[in-house]
């Protein structure tokens, strides 16, 4: 097995290695192989006893139909918008809250039980409450998604803040930095890897919560479409929905990773 990790380097922050990659296959190709393999397995499933599972051509056909009549486009747009807004709001709220929790003991004491508590509550259970509080418009849907991404992200940020190298904070303080500056210019960059974990996990949760969110009187959206298809046990449509969600999630994750590589190029990474 080719080891990418082989590219070794040197002391904390001295020379950066020129990769000694014996990598024969580029990452993208491997991803492709993996995806093809997955599709292959999927294709086999119906023939080895899972007769329920629609084969890829059937699903592709359905996807084509839904694309042509514009349903898929509308659904994708609606869902993407919800997930995007909810996710971004969640992250934007989580970073300062996580920071405050990590930095000020009392805030941590007050907020933490609730963060933990709400983390364990399934989105399905929050929906009736969300309807009562926020009606059936976009607000409760986005709120449920917001909650999912916020709660994943806040813990990661918190842990990131707690783990920031004290030396760097001290260095900033002796240079006259006050809490606000330390937060923006030391803690945030230093805990980027943690925040990123939170964002990636939160992104997944956001999409996974979509179906629940679109229980709330959605008129379109991938989650709604899947749910609706369940009434008729329309498995091809369900699969189209699953795959669309998976692909969109994957794409957003790639964008995240791409952004991250630029934000943390200062790191010595393996």
């Amino acid at each position, binding site marked *: 097995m080719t080891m990418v990790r082989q590219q070794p380097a040197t*002391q904390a*922050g*001295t*020379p*950066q290695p020129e990769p000694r990659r014996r990598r024969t296959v580029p990452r993208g190709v491997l991803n492709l192989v993996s995806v093809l393999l997955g599709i292959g397995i999927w294709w086999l499933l119906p023939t080895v006893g899972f007769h329920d599972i629609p084969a890829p051509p059937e699903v592709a056909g359905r996807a084509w139909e839904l694309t042509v009549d514009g349903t898929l486009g509308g659904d994708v747009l609606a869902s993407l918008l919800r997930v995007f807004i909810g996710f971004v709001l969640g992250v934007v709220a989580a970073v300062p809250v996580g920071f405050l929790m990590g930095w000020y003991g009392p805030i941590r004491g007050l907020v933490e039980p609730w963060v933990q508590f709400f983390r364990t509550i399934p989105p399905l259970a929050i929906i009736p409450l969300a309807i009562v509080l926020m009606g059936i418009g976009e607000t409760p849907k986005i709120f449920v998604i917001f909650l999912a991404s916020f709660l994943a992200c806040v813990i990661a940020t918190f842990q990131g803040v707690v783990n920031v190298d004290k*030396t*760097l904070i*001290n*260095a*900033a*303080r*002796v*240079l*006259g*930095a*006050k809490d606000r*500056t330390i937060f923006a*210019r*030391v803690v945030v*960059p*230093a805990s980027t890897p943690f925040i990123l974990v939170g964002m990636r996990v939160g992104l997944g949760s956001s999409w996974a919560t979509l179906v629940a969110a679109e229980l709330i009187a959605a008129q379109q959206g991938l989650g709604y479409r899947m749910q609706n298809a369940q009434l008729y046990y329309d498995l091809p449509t369900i699969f189209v929905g699953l795959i669309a969600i998976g692909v969109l999630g994957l794409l957003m994750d790639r964008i995240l990773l791409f952004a991250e590589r630029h934000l*943390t*190029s*200062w*790191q*010595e990474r393996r």
Partner: protein
Amino acid sequence: MIVIDRVRKVFPLAGAEFVALGDVSLELADNEFVTIVGPSGCGKTTLMNILAGLETPSGGRALVDGTPVAGPGPERGVIFQQYALFPWLTVRKNVEFGLRTAGVPAARRREIAEHFIHLVGLDQFADALPKMLSGGMKQRVAIARAYAVNPSILLMDEPFGAVDALTRVRLQEQLLDTWSQERRTVVFVTHDVDEAVFLANRVVVMAARPGRIVEVIDVDLPYPRTEDIRLSPAFATLRNRVWGAVYHQETPA
């Protein structure tokens, strides 16, 4: 004026207490240049941290201009033994950091940073990240960063430890130059007895277990200190006196 008044520092170690500093007292006049020498682990860094406001004494107190040290501040610049550069900032941005927190406008900031980057000989690396620098280069960035905010007290913890002898001499001379021009108080930890004598008004000799001051040696050599002074018999005498004070203690361990 810095007053260190019976400062104690105790760490828990393996269930027991480890006395890193046992009742250390010292007074530093304004604009004094004091070097601290002593064996590894005798509490030099601990003392610096207390003066910087990064650690609180377990007993006694540290006063700067009459008020107890309550936390760090930009008027007390610190060069850390292990550099503590911000790895996500370029050399230039690292040097500008303190200027930004002080609200210096961008153009002026850049100018100051250029100057100090040049001073430590890193012009070519102004836009490099710390991970691209060698050990000695990192140390020089840390020096430039501390100099840039122009603190009235400079706490330097083995600042020239990782650079080669010639660079070291050059840095020593620069430090003395600036110190004589814009007077400030410097507390300077070193392992190099020559360096300690060459730079200081007074050399503070510490000993370990418990960390304490065993002798304070006045260096009555004139400034500017030149190569001639370094080669003078008076220098040799002082050098030997300091050496004796450090190493003819009962050696620990």
